[in-house]
């Protein structure tokens, strides 16, 4: 069954069909939640709640991109959680070396422990600066620069206009640039905002 058929079956109460959609999108949903919350445990909770909410409100899905609809639920859950407890995202870079993700990260183009350490420092700086952004700007930055969604998709996910998305993204990038410039001395020279997009 393709995605449309799975959605159709799930709307009729077929939980197995919905769970196949969960398997297909759980990594994406968890990553978005993790980048917004910057806390693995909170991201796990938000992801689970988002899937439950998605199943219960599947009748309201009017077609279109299921991925955007699901990510909208995820970001709304995260945003509500951040608002509810006035919490700031946590940076948890220490876990990076304890998970399998570190291996993926190490299997980049430039092997070697030094390169790994330098990249790790850069990731730490980016995540720290990302966590300091206002919630709306962080969500836009995550969806655009981390996940690679285009403006239109972000506008659908956030329920905002294209102009709002552009201005929030611009402000987020400026804040990130200022933040990273402040910590540039901590980074290796070759990573002081000189990392060119290949």
């Amino acid at each position, binding site marked *: 069954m393709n995605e449309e058929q799975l959605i159709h079956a799930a709307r009729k*109460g077929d*939980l197995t069909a*919905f*769970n196949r959609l*969960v*398997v297909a999108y*759980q*990594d994406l*949903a*968890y*990553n978005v939640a*993790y*980048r917004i919350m910057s806390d*693995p445990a909170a991201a*796990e909770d938000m*992801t*689970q709640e988002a*899937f*439950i909410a998605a*199943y*219960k*409100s599947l*009748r309201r899905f009017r077609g279109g991109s299921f991925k955007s609809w699901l990510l909208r639920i995820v970001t709304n859950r995260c945003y509500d959680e951040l608002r509810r407890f006035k919490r700031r995202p946590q940076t948890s870079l220490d876990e*990076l070396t304890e*998970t*399998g*993700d*570190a291996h*993926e990260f190490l299997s*980049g183009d430039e092997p070697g422990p030094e390169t790994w350490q330098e*990249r790790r420092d*850069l*990731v730490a700086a*980016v*995540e720290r600066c*990302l966590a300091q952004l206002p919630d709306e700007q962080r969500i836009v*930055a995550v969806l*655009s*620069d*981390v996940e*690679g969604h*285009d*403006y239109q998709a972000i506008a659908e996910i956030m329920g905002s206009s294209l102009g709002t998305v*552009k*201005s929030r*993204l*611009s402000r987020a*990038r*400026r804040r*990130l*640039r200022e933040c*990273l*410039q402040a910590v540039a001395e901590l980074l290796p020279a070759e*990573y002081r*905002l*000189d*990392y*060119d*997009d*290949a």
Partner: protein
Amino acid sequence: MFDFLRNLLNPGPDRMEERLGEYLDGTLSPRARSRLEATLAQDPALREQLRQMRAIRAAMRRLPRRRAPRSFTLSPDQVGAGRQAPAWSPYPVLRAATVVVTVMLAALLVFDLGFYRGGLARPAGETALAPLAASEPAAATRVVAEEAVELEVEAPAAAIAAEEAEPSLARETPADAADAAAPAAPPPAVVAEAEAPAEGAPEQEVAAGAVEATDDAPTRGAFGAQGLPAGGTEPDVITPTLVGTPPPAPSAAPVEVTPTASPTPVLAPALTSTAVAPVAVVVPTAAPEAPTPSPAGGLSPLIFAEIGLGLAALGLGLLAWLFRRRS
């Protein structure tokens, strides 16, 4: 106007930064892109800013992806299988019912305030509540005074002194009763007077025929008793009443009023002796076509309907809100 043109030609730093972002994301139009590239060629600071933005975006794109720490597939318990939101929800029905009831309530209120109650200002013949018309009591009581059998109790000689001592009672008591019956200044002709026999005289003596009608009797002894025989042959046992409640409508049966309250202490002795009751009877003039008001303190059925509709609208609205929240 000139500021707008200047901003259009030379965008500020914020707008330029936004354009750089769009250039980076490849969303600029070809014309805007070529124009920006021309600007970049002449502005090293702008090129540096673009380089930093590109580096940051690349760093964010290379942030490590994380695998889901566990499976997020749902179990029937998590989603409450069998308790999924029903296809039919009572919310639309409740919402429509709330609107209908509210409209009915509004229409009823408009009718009540604008037409029904507004009709009170019309003449007595056209009003719905004729007895409440303020101009009625005077004429009505005047008729009663003409038709009333004026009774004079021949009191024993010993009671004359007591009779003379009573004007205050004669002036006060009927006034109270008349006030209650017709608050709009009853005429003196309606005033009933109590003429007390001698203190301690047996009540039966008065009832045994001591009541007679006299044409020249003072109005203070008038009773509004249409059913009383003109000759006074039928005994009446009337005891003073000073209660503010109006007497019942006149009937053929003799009126027997039980004292339910005492007047002022000064008048108490005269009242304790049996006497002609100072009862003021007010017979409303005929208003045959006018509907009578509700006996429940002037509350018309419309009021009850309005209250009922208001409560119904409130309840339906509350239910609709609750179902909306649940869904």
